[in-house]
């Protein structure tokens, strides 16, 4: 593992931390929803990074399924917020 790959992994970990901070302190439900959306995106990218790290092709399938389920969940919560505020 080279220096640049270690820096990339560190940046991904910091990104997850910052997203979690926004997820915890977000003032209302929409802020938390947006934070969850971005966190799902970051997790999909990090899972493909795990595929390289552990040298296993299986993690690419995991990333694809995770992205699908996260998209469905985000859209469902968005529709719930759309109905609840009005």
């Amino acid at each position, binding site marked *: 593992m*080279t220096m*640049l*790959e270690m820096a990339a992994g560190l940046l991904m970990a910091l990104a997850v931390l910052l997203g979690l901070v926004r997820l915890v302190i977000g003032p209302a439900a929409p802020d938390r929803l947006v934070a969850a959306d971005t966190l799902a995106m970051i997790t*999909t*990218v990090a899972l*493909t990074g795990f595929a*390289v790290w552990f040298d296993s092709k299986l993690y*690419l399938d995991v990333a694809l399924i995770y992205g699908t389920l996260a998209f469905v969940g985000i859209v469902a919560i968005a529709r719930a917020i759309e109905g609840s*505020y009005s």
Partner: protein
Amino acid sequence: MRLLADLFLFTGALFTFLAALGLLRMPDVYNRIQVGTKAATLGALCFFIGIGILHPDWWLKLVVIAGFILLTNPVGSSTIARALYIAGVKPWHVSKQKASRVITAETREGS
């Protein structure tokens, strides 16, 4: 070749980190949607290009994941923005007093 792949991986991770930083720093929900979607999509694509250079026999699955992200991420963010707009979340405005203070600070800096 390894260095090129590592540069792509680092660029992707950097843009993903900037997306998370913008998520923390932006003042409004709509700004956060915008920065989270655009920067994270660019970072993901750079990351996938780097992995494709590193492991050339994985390109088919990487293209599938990249196409999926390009398809669903804008749809998801526009769904969130539409839901918030219908639910009546107000966009963020700079108040008039604060805007004038910013302008005077800039002119003082320039002179």
